[in-house]
């Protein structure tokens, strides 16, 4: 039965892709098309665009992404714990507090280092 339920999600995925691709095909068939050089220019300010867009960007995004991975995995660990919390007893609470404290130290360290300051 469990497998069947996931088949329904697959069906929905197929329907969703159809609903997403169909309008694009319709538009490609019936919408007017008049190409011109000015239209295919980058939309900025009317003057020719200056410099590259696909550049390397700041390292700060990388650090935020790293922090995100740590905390996201933490959240994933917390979900099963929360679901079965009723049957685990008081020790589960203490264990989880230890886990959270270790991670919070990481956050506090990053904070103190000034990593979280957006400049």
């Amino acid at each position, binding site marked *: 039965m469990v497998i069947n339920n*996931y*088949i329904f999600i697959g069906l*929905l995925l197929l*329907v969703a892709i159809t609903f997403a691709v169909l*309008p694009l095909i319709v538009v490609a068939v019936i*919408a*007017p098309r008049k190409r011109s050089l000015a239209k295919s220019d980058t939309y900025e300010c009317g003057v020719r665009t200056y410099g590259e867009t696909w550049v390397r960007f700041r390292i700060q995004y990388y650090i935020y992404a790293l922090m995100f991975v740590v905390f996201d995995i933490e959240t994933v660990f917390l*979900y099963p714990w*929360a679901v079965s919390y009723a049957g685990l007893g008081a020790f589960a609470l203490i264990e989880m507090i230890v886990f959270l404290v270790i991670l919070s130290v990481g956050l506090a360290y990053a904070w103190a280092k000034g990593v979280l*300051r957006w400049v």
Partner: protein
Amino acid sequence: MLWVAIGILLKILVVVSIALGTVAYLIYVERKVAAYAQDRVGPNRAGKELGIPFGLLQPLADGAKMVLKEDVIPGYVSRPLYMLAPVIAIVAAMIGFAVVPFGPVGPNQIMNFQIAPNINIGILYVFAIGSLAVYGIILAGWASNNKYAFLGALRSSAQLISYEIPLGMSILGMVLIAGSLDLNQIVNWQDRRVWGVVVQPIGFLLFLVSAFAETNRLPFDLPESEQELVGGYHTEYSAMKFGMFFLGEYLHVITVSYLTVLLFFGGWSLPFHLLNQNQIGFLSAVFKVMVLLFKVALMILFIMWVRWTLPRFRYDHLMDLAWKSLIPLSLVNLVATAAIVQLIYSSR
């Protein structure tokens, strides 16, 4: 099995059409709310010739315009990614619906108002799919080869990953209290006891703030902030492709409103057990669906109201809010909830 699949397919088609129709009218409602907030009347012409008042045909006119306008593809874009981005945006928004119940679900119901019932990971699935939406935005911004779009996509990526953490943690308290990830079980728990907002007020606030950020709604609409980034990640998109980003955004608003109501406002139940949940039958099912829809409509109106009330955040304030306020607060909330639940268990 085949008949079940066909039945489900029909259900999916009905749900998707209703959702898309709702989105079309949400855009109309949004424009009306915006108009009244600014002391205007808003769209009121479309349909006048046919005797239909209040411009109620405006969504049709908007839809026709999206199809009939020229679909400009700028010359400098990375074409495959440029075409793929709106598809991802709308598919991710749609398949999140799979586990959201639109009404009572259960073995003793005559009808299950859910596309994929009995998925035990429930809300985790919604969040997993919800985080896929960021790919649509980042690909759109990157593929457009436009500096405004690129800046919008960068902002969006940092914003979405930052607010995903408090969003995930804010509902942990509710999951812990109800003991299940299944949205039906959470609603049933609230019906037996009290609404989630009473037992998890901080969780509710955290969820609300993060949800605004995750749906890119004002006051957190920095990925598209018109006044500084032209249109943000969809600057280079036109016609139907732009419309698809728009549809995706409003689908997210609907999903978030459903989740808020299901998690914190009792879903299809009424307070003080005014609605007997054990009663089965067609009329009671319809009534429960109506109750849920009413609450969701109120939630959507609230989201629109906030848009015209609060100004946009500055970007560094936005990041500070997530990392220095919401995440520590959600950790504290979780530990406090767990401790109180433990106290209640041990006192029994």
